[in-house]
């Protein structure tokens, strides 16, 4: 189905065609594994495969060398059919040292390919990794996997020797050697990476040339060594027609915000404070100042939130982003944003909590914080993207809801989505929904302006400074209905509290009904939200294929819920809610719909494996009916 001709490097060895490969690259956090993984992903995407990735790295920039704590990994699945996860078990694992081996080998399937940088396995490395003997000589390793030992450091040094680099710089090229070898093994073209090297190291020609030499040497090693009898090939996937590019979640989110600003005819203000794993949104947005993007790196999280509100008051599309701890700091100001009834988007790229928690690991444990983490009755809409590329649409949707209702909208991403990547079908600009915004002007009827007069969505007018005759004051003290003046009247406070809640609840009338993957009733409904979409969908699909009466509902709208959700939950004998938290959505569903949901909860800083979800589903459904 693809038109793109896949340019395989010409190998003389046998090529085996497979439907998909899951590979993980693991080494020291300074070994360049993330770069290797990103390159392999892009190259595979360009070859037309569907791809899904899972980068996994420590919170320390350079944890002590060679230790288990310093291991950085990047997993990618590329396939000729549509996939939704980076894969459960590995077909191939590349390890640069013993620490990487012992922390990752348990995920390699029996008989899988294990490529080890032999030069990284010295006595010193064993001590650092706290292993007693050389694991490459262990019987269990040699019996269980196809171990291929490659002296990468030596071979890299030899390959780059003519470029006259210092030994330290020369050794840094070994990730490109490893890359060359991996590319040979999976029949990948070197061209995109050669282009990348030229762009990245163009100003240092000797480094560029050495990296190219290392890359080619790695490929040539695969071609000549007797250790590999054959290489593998994954044909292009049959994706929906269109032009594609590989997208990471945070990048898609940033582009979605830029697109939303264009679609609404607004310029974008982004106030933020650096925090993992949200900072890449700032890095991306600040590249796009020619779209009228103004980025403000504030002195703290509170300032970032408040500057966002200030910009919103001025009539700009205003956005802030952070992760759990930063969102906690923003809570008071977010409450003010809700009280002022100004449109803005607050992004939370969730990470492992509580407190500082697991900054580089994923979790879904800020759902209740998003809904209730402010003082007083302060409801705001909450929505969540389901995959890296989906961050684009979700960002646009968040801004649409914010402007329709004059309310801050919380967008809940997570570290898994933010750093993961997948092919994104580039939309035609005309098909993106326009967002209509109207600012009132003085109609000169002699009547006083009513800043809290409501429209059919219960939104108030977005009257901006500079507009003659509409001067008004907003603030955090309770507002009088319609006039917006400070009011301590008991009945008015009740009315305003109810109105702010009703405004958010009414959104359910305008968002789509909840869709179901599978039958609208049955033995089990799996309900998920956010980044667990791919794993849940894949697990449900496999169980359906096995004959189970199980369906899947993945929620994008978490506050308010879709209007048919309660009815849907009640159409199944059981409801299973897998979450990377201790049961937050489950608590909401139970309290809202009085449905006794079953939880499957994991907080290990890792996404769900499809296999564990299948196991869970199977424990809650009757034996499959014959098909």
């Amino acid at each position: 189905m693809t038109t793109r001709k896949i340019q395989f490097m010409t190998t003389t060895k046998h090529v085996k065609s497979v439907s998909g490969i899951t590979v993980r690259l693991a080494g020291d956090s300074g070994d360049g594994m993330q770069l290797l993984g990103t390159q392999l992903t892009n190259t595979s995407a360009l070859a037309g495969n569907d791809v899904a990735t899972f980068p996994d790295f420590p919170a320390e920039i350079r944890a002590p060398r060679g230790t288990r704590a310093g291991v950085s990994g990047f997993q990618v699945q590329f396939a000729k059919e549509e996939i939704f996860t980076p894969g459960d078990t590995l077909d191939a694992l590349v390890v640069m040292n013993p620490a990487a081996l012992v922390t990752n080998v348990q995920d390699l399937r029996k008989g899988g390919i294990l490529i080890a940088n032999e030069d990284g396995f010295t006595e010193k490395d064993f001590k650092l990794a706290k292993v007693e003997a050389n694991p490459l000589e262990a019987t269990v390793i040699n019996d269980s996997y196809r171990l291929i030992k490659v002296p990468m450091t030596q071979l890299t040094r030899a390959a780059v020797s003519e470029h006259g680099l210092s030994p330290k710089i020369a050794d840094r090229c070994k990730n490109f050697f490893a890359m060359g070898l991996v590319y040979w093994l999976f029949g990948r073209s070197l061209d995109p990476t050669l282009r990348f090297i030229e762009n990245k190291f163009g100003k240092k020609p000797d480094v560029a040339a050495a990296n190219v030499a290392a890359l080619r040497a790695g490929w040539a090693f695969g071609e000549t060594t007797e250790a590999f009898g054959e290489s593998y090939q994954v044909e292009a996937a049959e994706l929906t027609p269109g032009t594609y590019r590989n997208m990471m979640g945070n990048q898609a989110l940033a582009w979605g915000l830029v697109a939303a600003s264009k679609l609404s005819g607004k310029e974008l203000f982004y106030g933020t404070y650096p925090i993992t794993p949200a900072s890449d949104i700032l890095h991306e947005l600040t590249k796009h100042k020619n779209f009228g993007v103004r980025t403000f790196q504030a002195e703290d999280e509170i300032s970032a939130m408040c500057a966002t509100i200030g910009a919103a008051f001025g009539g700009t599309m205003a956005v802030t982003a952070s992760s759990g701890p930063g969102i906690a700091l923003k809570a008071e100001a977010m409450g003010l944003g809700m009280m002022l009834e100004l449109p803005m988007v607050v992004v939370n790229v969730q990470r492992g909590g509580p407190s500082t928690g697991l900054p580089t690991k994923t979790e879904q444990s800020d759902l209740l914080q998003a809904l209730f983490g402010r003082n007083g009755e302060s409801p705001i809409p909450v929505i969540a993207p389901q995959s890296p590329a989906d961050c684009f649409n979700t960002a646009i949707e968040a801004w649409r809801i914010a402007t329709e209702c004059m309310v801050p909208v919380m967008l809940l991403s997570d570290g898994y989505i933010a750093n993961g990547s997948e092919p994104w079908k580039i939309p035609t600009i005309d098909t993106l929904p326009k967002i209509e915004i109207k600012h009132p002007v003085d109609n000169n009827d002699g009547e006083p302006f009513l800043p809290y007069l409501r429209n059919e969505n219960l939104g108030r007018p977005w009257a901006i400074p500079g507009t003659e005759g509409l001067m008004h004051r907003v603030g955090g003290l309770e507002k009088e209905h319609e006039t917006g003046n400070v009011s301590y009247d008991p009945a008015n406070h009740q009315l305003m509290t109810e109105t702010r809640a009703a405004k958010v609840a009414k959104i359910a009338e305008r968002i789509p009904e909840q869709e179901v993957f599978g039958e609208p009733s049955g033995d089990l409904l799996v309900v998920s939200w956010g980044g667990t979409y791919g794993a849940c969908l894949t697990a449900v699909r496999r169980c359906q294929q096995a004959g189970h009466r199980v369906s899947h509902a993945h929620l994008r709208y978490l506050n308010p819920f879709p209007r048919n959700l309660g009815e849907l939950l009640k159409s199944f004998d059981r409801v299973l809610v897998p979450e990377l938290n201790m049961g937050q959505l489950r608590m909401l569903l139970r309290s809202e719909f009085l449905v006794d949901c079953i939880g499957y909860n994991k907080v290990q800083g890792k996404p769900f494996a499809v296999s564990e979800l299948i196991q869970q589903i199977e424990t809650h459904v009757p034996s499959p009916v014959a098909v």
Partner: protein
Amino acid sequence: MSLPVLKAADFASDQDVRWCPGCGDYSILAQMKKVLPELGVPREKIVFVSGIGCSSRFPYYMNTYGMHSIHGRAPTFATGLKSTRPDLMVWVITGDGDALSIGGNHFIHVLRRNLDINIVLFNNRIYGLTKGQYSPTSTEGQVTKSTPMGSIDHPLSPLSVALAAEATFVARSLDAHVKHLGAVLKRASEHKGTSLVEVYQNCNVFNDGAMAYAQEKKQRADNVVELEHGKPLVFGKNNEKAIRLVGTHLEIVERSEVPDDDLLIHDEKDPNPSIQMMLARMRYPEMPEPIGVLRDVDNVATYDEQINAQVELAKETRGEGDLDKLFHAGDTWVVD
């Protein structure tokens, strides 16, 4: 086109003012309403942003745009607003607790960024709205509701903090000295960059007379020195005293004993804030306290100017952003 001539009353909102009778805030509000019509800026182009505290009710009483925000954060709301709407004139109204305690962080950062706004800090050396606890500017030993045995905190001077952050406009005035106050507010509004005006403001309920040495006409001449650019620092009922710089400190001299050439001449334009910092550190009762403009440095780029200049430059050099071009830049592939 000529603008309609506005009067002080045109700047009054329809809301009843609810400060305690006799509060110094009334005087500041009156001077603000008097100064604004002189600036020729239409009411709809003016925004007052405040934090929390007695002073921060100020925006409700002005017939302009306004935001009564949260405690200590007014400068940050102003940053978002002014960065995106440089056409507006933005005033921040704050107090000693609001700006220097809970909002200390934002206070220094807005000053160092030199956002083109005006900050008026009402300093009454007490928490009024929470009924009488000591503040960061309360004096050592001050007995308040939360310090029955006397405050053990060393007070903070907003002027010193501002000068350390190299703010481009730093001034002080008194609520009781209305003419001076009006003139200083006007100068603040004319400065491009962040202007900080500290106003000694009397809280007649919880800290009455705390600054009587400066506020009361009878005492003022001996305890306050009115700064004038290019002029010596003279004070006393008959201008008989002056300030001299000796080495790295300031001293009081009798003018009859010292030739005028030896006196310290005030230079508010000096980009080096060292001597201005010495002025900020002059404290009653050892020294007279300076009022007026300590520092007014021009030609320092403002934050709002620069954030917008970068956007304009990006548009000029790379063209107005085009989504289609962005989406298709770099590696893409086609499936059909």
